[in-house]
C-alpha cells in the first residue's frame, strides 16, 4: 500500500464510521458492534505480537483487565483527572510490559505462552481476592467524571457516539501501526522474527526490538481495556481471565494475523456470528472451535488471507 492510499483508506474509514454511527439508530446493533470493536482492538494487540514477533500469548487479558482497574483505582483515589489517569495507565502498562518483555521474550515457543498464562492468571487471582482495592470477585464500578476530554460523558456514552469512538480508535491504531511497520522498525522486527540468529549476524541487537513489540502489543490491548471500562463503566476479574486471552487469540488466528486488520475482522465476525446464532449460542464455543479448525486447515492465513487470495484472482496464484 502506498503512503497516499494508506492515508486515503484511513480517512475514508473514519468518515464511514462517523456516518454509520450517525445514521444507524438501532441501539442493540450499535452496542453489539461497539463490543466487537473493543475486542477488535484487543485482538489487534495479540495479532501484532504474533505477526511481528512470531510469539503466541495466552495472557493478553492481563493488559486488557489491568488497564480498566488502573483507571478505576486512580480515579477512585481522587488523585488526578480522568484524562491523566488514562494516559498514566496506558503508559504504565506499556512500560511494565517492556520491562517484563526484556526477560520473557527470550523464552522460546510454548514456554513463553505458558509464562504469559501464568502471569495473567496471577493477576486474575489477585484481583479476585483483593476486595479492598478491586472489589474482589464482584468487580468495581468506575465513576467517570461528568466530562471526559471536554465531552459530556452522557453524550459520549450514547450508543452512536461510543461506536464512533471505538471505531475511530481501531482505525487510528491500525493506521499508526501500519505507518510504524513500514519503516525500519518493521524491517528489523520482521528480520528478528524470521531468523533471529541471522539478524544478529547482520548487526541487529535482537532483544530490544522483541521487547518493544511486546510492549506495543500490550499497549494496544490496554487501550481496548480502557475503551471497555468506558463502555461498561465496570471492570471485574473476568476481564483478566485467561479465557479472554484465548478468545482474542482465536479471533486473531481466524481473522488472519498476517495482515494488521485481520484480527479485527476476526473479532467482528466472532461477535456477529455469535449474535446470529441467537438461541444456539449456548453451544457457541463448540461452533467457533470448528470454525477455528476449518480456518487453520483450509486457510492458515485466516479470513483476511482468503480474501486477499480472492482479490488477487483465485487460489492458484502464489509465489513469485
Amino acid at each position, binding site marked *: 500500500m502506498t503512503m497516499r492510499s494508506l492515508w486515503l483508506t484511513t480517512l475514508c474509514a473514519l468518515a464511514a464510521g462517523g456516518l454509520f454511527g450517525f445514521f444507524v439508530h438501532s441501539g442493540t446493533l450499535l452496542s453489539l458492534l461497539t463490543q466487537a470493536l473493543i475486542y477488535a482492538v484487543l485482538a489487534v494487540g495479540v495479532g501484532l505480537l504474533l505477526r511481528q514477533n512470531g510469539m503466541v500469548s495466552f495472557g493478553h487479558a492481563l493488559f486488557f483487565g489491568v488497564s480498566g482497574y488502573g483507571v478505576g483505582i486512580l480515579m477512585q483515589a481522587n488523585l488526578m483527572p480522568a484524562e491523566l489517569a488514562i494516559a498514566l495507565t496506558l503508559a504504565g502498562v506499556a512500560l511494565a510490559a517492556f520491562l517484563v518483555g526484556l526477560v520473557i521474550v527470550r523464552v522460546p515457543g510454548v514456554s513463553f505462552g505458558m509464562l504469559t498464562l501464568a502471569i495473567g492468571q496471577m493477576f486474575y487471582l489477585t484481583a479476585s481476592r483483593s476486595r479492598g482495592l478491586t472489589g474482589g470477585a464482584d468487580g468495581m464500578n468506575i465513576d467517570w467524571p461528568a466530562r471526559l476530554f471536554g465531552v459530556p460523558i452522557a453524550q459520549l456514552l450514547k450508543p452512536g457516539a461510543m461506536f464512533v469512538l471505538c471505531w475511530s480508535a481501531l482505525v487510528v491504531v491500525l493506521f499508526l501501526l501500519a505507518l510504524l511497520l513500514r519503516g*525500519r522498525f518493521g*524491517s528489523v522486527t*520482521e*528480520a528478528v*522474527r524470521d531468523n533471529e540468529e*541471522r539478524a*544478529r*549476524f*547482520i548487526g541487529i541487537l535482537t532483544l530490544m526490538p522483541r521487547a518493544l513489540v511486546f510492549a506495543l502489543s500490550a499497549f494496544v490491548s490496554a487501550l481496548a481495556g480502557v475503551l471497555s471500562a468506558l463502555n461498561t463503566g465496570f471492570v471485574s476479574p473476568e476481564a483478566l481471565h485467561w479465557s479472554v486471552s484465548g478468545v482474542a487469540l482465536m479471533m486473531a488466528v481466524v481473522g488472519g494475523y498476517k495482515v494488521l486488520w485481520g484480527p479485527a475482522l476476526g473479532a467482528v465476525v466472532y461477535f456477529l456470528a455469535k449474535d446470529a446464532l441467537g438461541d444456539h449460542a449456548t453451544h457457541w464455543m463448540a461452533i467457533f472451535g470448528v470454525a477455528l479448525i476449518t480456518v487453520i486447515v483450509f486457510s492458515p492465513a485466516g479470513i483476511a488471507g482468503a480474501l486477499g487470495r480472492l482479490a488477487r484472482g483465485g487460489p492458484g496464484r502464489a509465489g513469485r
Partner: protein
Amino acid sequence: MSALVLEAVDVAVHYGGVKAVDGVSFSLARGQIRGLIGPNGAGKSTVIDAVTGRSRLTRGKVLLDGEDVTALGVVQRRLRGLSRSFQRTSIFGGMSVRRQVELAAQRMNHDRPAADAEAVLGELGLMQVADVTAEALGYGEQRRLDLALALVGKPKVLLLDEPMAGLSVRESHELARHLESLAGRWNVSVLLVEHDMDVVFGISHALTVFELGRVIASGEPAEVRRDPRVREAYLGSAG
C-alpha cells in the same frame, strides 16, 4: 593498524569434555584468502563460530585489526567488520531480497544504505530478483543472498562456511572466480571453509589444514599439497 586483519591466537573451544577446537592459531592479511580444510568433524565450523562470537572460547583470543574482540558479542563484531555466511542458507524468508539487504546495509551505518545494497545485489547478480520474497527464490539465488547479507557494508573479514555446498560444479567455479575477484577489488580478507578441493586450491593464497581440532599444516597451497601428513590424513596418500 596491523598488517594482519584477523588473528586467532591459541583458540580452544571445549564442549564439556569434547575438545572441538584445541589450541588453533592462524591469521589473515588484508585481502588474503585463506582456505581452511580438513575432514568432517575437524572443527572448521566451530572455528568460524568461535571467531564470530557465536561460540564462547575456552581459551585463546581473537584480534580484529589489532583489537582484541574476544569479549565482544556477535553484533559488535559484525559492526566492526567481521562477517560470515552460513553452511545452511540463513536468510529472512518472509522479506524481499532488497528489503533485507538494505536492512543489513542500514545497520552498517552507511550514509547511503540503498546504494550500498544495490552495489552488493548487482555484484551477486540478484538485481533481477530484488523484489522477490526470499523464500520464493531458487536454491542458488538463496545461497547468493546469504552471501549478499554477509558482504553488505564491505566487511574487513568474511568467513565463508562452505559457500559452494549444494551448487553444481559450474556454479561453484563461477562463484569461486567471483569471490576471488571481489576479495581483491573490495580488499576483503576471506577465510574459506570448503570441501571442493579444486575451488580451495584454486583461489586460496594460503591454507590451514585441520584434523581433530588441531592444525596439522599451514602454508601456501603448493607447499601444503606436498606435506606428507596432509596427504596421509586428508587428501589420501595416493593423491
